[in-house]
């Protein structure tokens, strides 16, 4: 088995692990398409989502995945929990672990917390996003979506556009795309790129218009407006003018080009509303595949581990 006992990063998973998850995901796409989209595979197991940083959609996706596998679901949110009263991360996760859960799905605003948690608990730990480090299941669902549409990522020219510096999605996706043989180009203003890209298997461009014509895939990152405007960008409008996928830019894409966004979208900022709903967009497929990919991850960690 190439996956497990935890899923902490795409980098750990490697090309074989990614391939394994994507292969198993086919089975869960079939399950999700059924009239009753549920199998008894993880009956009697408990999956806890422990989110120290809020994210409704990722949490909902994991919980839906767990329920479709017939696992029991427990959840802990920071706002309503003892974390708000000052309990440490360690005490929180060890308390949940002691209740006998089988998997902890952890999100935290600091990089490395899921890794640290995996050393403290006996449950399997799934990284649901840690700081600007990784968001492995997002990368897996994006790869699955592209594979379902294109058959393969080998040689695909993928533009990853936007705030790479603060994006865990960008980090996970760059590793995953590269592992599957795609050619990745980061497109962003210099202020939104990490200080060093040493070791990243990417090309860098500051000119979206120059890259669009050749692109097979445009992957738009969310612009975290509250964080960037002022310090790193002159204005949101300036960003859209240079790096937003506007209607005019979308027209210059090839007929088979695909547009992805991890959500939540800033319509009219990094992506025009018409483009998000246009024929090239596979954004709703990403969401649907997200549940199936997370079913595959939970099943491989809990069911296939023996």
């Amino acid at each position, binding site marked *: 088995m190439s996956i497990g006992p935890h899923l902490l990063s795409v980098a750990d998973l490697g090309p074989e692990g990614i391939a394994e998850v994507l292969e198993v995901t086919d089975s869960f796409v079939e399950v999700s398409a059924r009239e009753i989209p549920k199998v*008894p595979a993880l009956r009697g197991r408990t999956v806890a989502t422990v989110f120290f940083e809020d994210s409704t959609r990722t949490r909902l996706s994991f919980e839906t995945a767990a329920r479709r596998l017939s696992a029991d679901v427990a959840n802990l949110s920071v706002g309503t929990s003892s974390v708000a009263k000052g309990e440490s991360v360690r005490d929180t996760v060890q308390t949940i672990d002691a209740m006998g859960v089988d998997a902890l799905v952890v999100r935290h605003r600091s990089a490395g917390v899921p890794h640290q948690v995996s050393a403290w608990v006996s449950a399997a730990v799934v990284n649901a996003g840690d700081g600007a480090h990784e968001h492995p299941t997002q990368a897996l669902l994006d790869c699955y979506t592209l594979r379902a549409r294109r058959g393969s990522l080998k040689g695909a020219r993928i533009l990853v556009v936007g705030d790479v510096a603060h994006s865990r999605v960008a980090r996970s996706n760059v590793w995953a795309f590269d592992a599957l043989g795609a050619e990745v180009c980061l497109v962003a203003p210099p202020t939104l790129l990490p200080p060093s890209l040493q070791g990243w298997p990417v090309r860098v461009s500051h000119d979206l218009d120059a890259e669009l014509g050749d692109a097979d895939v445009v992957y738009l990152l969310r612009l975290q407006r509250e964080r960037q405007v002022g310090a790193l960008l002159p204005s949101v409008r300036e960003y859209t003018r240079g790096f937003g996928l506007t209607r005019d830019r979308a027209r210059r894409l090839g007929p088979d080009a695909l547009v992805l966004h991890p959500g939540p979208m800033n319509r009219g900022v990094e992506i025009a509303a018409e483009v998000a709903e246009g024929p090239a967009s596979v954004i709703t497929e990403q969401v649907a595949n997200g549940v199936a990919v997370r079913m595959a991850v939970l099943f491989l960690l809990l069911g296939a581990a023996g």
Partner: protein
Amino acid sequence: MARRERVAATGSPVDLVERSQVMDADDLRRAVVRIAHEVLERNHGLEGVVIVGLQTGGAPLARRLAAALAEIEGVEVPTGTLDVAFYRDDIRLRPVVPEAATDIPFEVTDRIVVLVDDVLFTGRTVRAALDALTDHGRPRAVQLAVMVDRGHRELPIRPDYVGKNLPTGRHQMVDVGAEGVDLGTVAPGPGPGPGGGGG
């Protein structure tokens, strides 16, 4: 065993020692044709009959059975495949990996479903298959066709159509391929342990 089945499905032979052939390709073909006749006789034709092969060993046999029925009756029988990984009762006891997605592109409710597998052993795979099938609908009847019944049942399950009854030891392995049926002992070394060859 999942790994072994995946290997077997890609066509490379299972690593067996003291391997001996118990059915050759002709025996296999004759058995499929006989089972096809038995299916027709028992159901008075093919009205409402559908075929579902269990992943992975049963899938090619299901296609062969459908081809034999098409040749005899001139009727295309709806044929699908079923993966039972998520319904197994040993999920916590050993690694269970789905082989290939279930593909049943037709209604099973009110149909006569002929389940097809390569080897019938403990009966646990068939039990899981009955549960899995129930999630797709309510068949009028379910019948079981296997190429080899090797005994050692652990559940009250019996086949309706059998290619060959083959007495085996618990630790032997039965390998059903396109070229025939082999009986042997799993070669020692890395990889899955004994007891495979259908459940």
